[in-house]
């Protein structure tokens, strides 16, 4: 316990775990809706629709909270990759995951109070949280009010592009989540980053 810094305020940790739980629920029920009738391992359609609707609205609220809290606290600044040398730092970080991590090298950009995220993290989180998740939320809300979608598009039902966006953006969130959980085990010890997300303290 040589070095300890306090990085994450309670609101952020609370939001993070709410968000995580909701996305797992949405992923399981969303897949059950999309692949309905394919097998017994899926949640029954009617139940899946009910849960997905409730969790979807909850996630939309959680996202609204996330955006507001980021503005109010100034935390949004963490998600902005700071030039110069963003690309170079991203490459260094990627090289670390591809090679350095196998040799037991230290993390190239350990978190500080000023820069919680390394450049690669900032870029990816920004992409997910400010592009992909809003896409899922907005298309999900249109799914609730299909009359908002165009009636017809190239002779096909206007809900098709909305549904495709929802499905593909949802899939991207799930892929991100899988990688995100895995990278969560690459701290000093496999559990230390998860501990940080609960206590708010980063340990080296």
């Amino acid at each position, binding site marked *: 316990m040589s070095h300890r810094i306090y990085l994450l305020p309670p609101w952020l940790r609370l939001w993070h775990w709410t968000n995580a739980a909701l996305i797992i629920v949405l992923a399981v029920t969303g897949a059950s809706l999309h*692949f*309905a*009738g394919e097998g017994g391992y899926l949640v029954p*359609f009617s139940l899946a629709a009910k849960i997905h609707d409730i969790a979807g609205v909850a996630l939309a609220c959680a996202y609204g909270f996330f955006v507001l809290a980021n503005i109010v606290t100034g935390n949004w600044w963490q998600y902005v990759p700071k030039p110069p040398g963003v690309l170079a730092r991203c490459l260094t970080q990627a090289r670390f995951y591809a090679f350095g991590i196998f040799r037991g090298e230290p993390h190239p950009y350990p978190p500080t109070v000023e820069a919680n995220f390394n450049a690669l993290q900032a870029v990816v989180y920004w992409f997910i949280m400010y592009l992909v998740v809003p896409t899922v939320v907005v298309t999900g809300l249109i799914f609730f009010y299909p009359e908002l979608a165009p009636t017809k598009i190239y*002779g*096909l*039902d206007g809900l098709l592009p909305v549904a495709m966006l929802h499905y593909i953006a949802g899939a991207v969130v799930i892929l991100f989540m899988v990688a995100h959980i*895995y990278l969560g085990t690459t701290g000093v010890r496999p559990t230390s980053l998860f501990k940080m997300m609960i206590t708010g303290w980063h340990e080296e």
Partner: protein
Amino acid sequence: MRPSTKSLFAALAFTALAAASGAGIAAEVKGAAPTDPALIEKIRKSNAECYACHTEAGLKNPPRADMDLAALTKFIHDPKQFDGSNHTGMECKVCHGQGYVAFPHAPEAKKSISECGECHATKALRVETQFEASVHAKNLKDAFTCQTCHDPHVYKVAAKVGDPRKIVAQDNAMCVDCHNSDLRYSAFSTALPTKKVRPDLYATHDWLPNARLHWSAVRCIECHTPVSPVKSLATSHEILAKDKSDKACVTCHSQDSALATRLYRYASTNVGADLGFANAQVLGSAYVVGATRNPLIDRAVIGLFGLTVLGLLGHGAVCVVLALIRRRRTS
């Protein structure tokens, strides 16, 4: 006659008979609309006599002074609707007989209106067998007839309507006009042994999310009738009791959706089929979660997910193994 001539004659006669019945197929049904312009004009004139009174225009401008206009308001027809129906081009008198030609109409005129089966013998017989087994025919007795649902002046068979949304609107109106009207419903439910209050449609379907949306996109009969055992009929007329009605979402919300073979059996394929979508004909007018999906995109998404998981597991395994090797070296 020598036997050979005899059989030649028989063959000729048979051919002539076959040709006659073959030519007759188009005009097989009694009263079918003619193609001869003179006959078309004759029918138009004949029907115009009825329309002189039985239209909004007739009601505003009655051709006679001695009519019960209050009674006439109940019998107003829209020629445009008739022209869009199955029976377009037919003469009113073919079904109504001579009793309505003169006014006042003959007192017994109503008795001589033709039944559906008089002209559609085969089809009506098949439909009737199914109809007799329906909750309506079994519980509501003779009050419930073909005309209760089918207005012969308005109804158009699904195969000719084409647009599935229009089919849904027409077919559901048949049921909703009664099941959403206390007045009409109670007029029929009096045939029941015990009085029955009309169940509210939205309350009895509260397990179905967004019932309003569903009822603009699918027909009541989709869930309330079995698949017709008679292949020549698109739908069964056997309305089942509520405990036998279909509650399974995946009947429609799955890749082998019943929508494709029932409501959408007449819909043509479209660009969706070229793009590889399942149930592409449905996609022409509705996106149905679980049904109108693209197996190619699905395979790509599942493949990507599998590769990601495998890749990460591999990465993790190499990390662990190398870490163990390093630890053994240092110790």
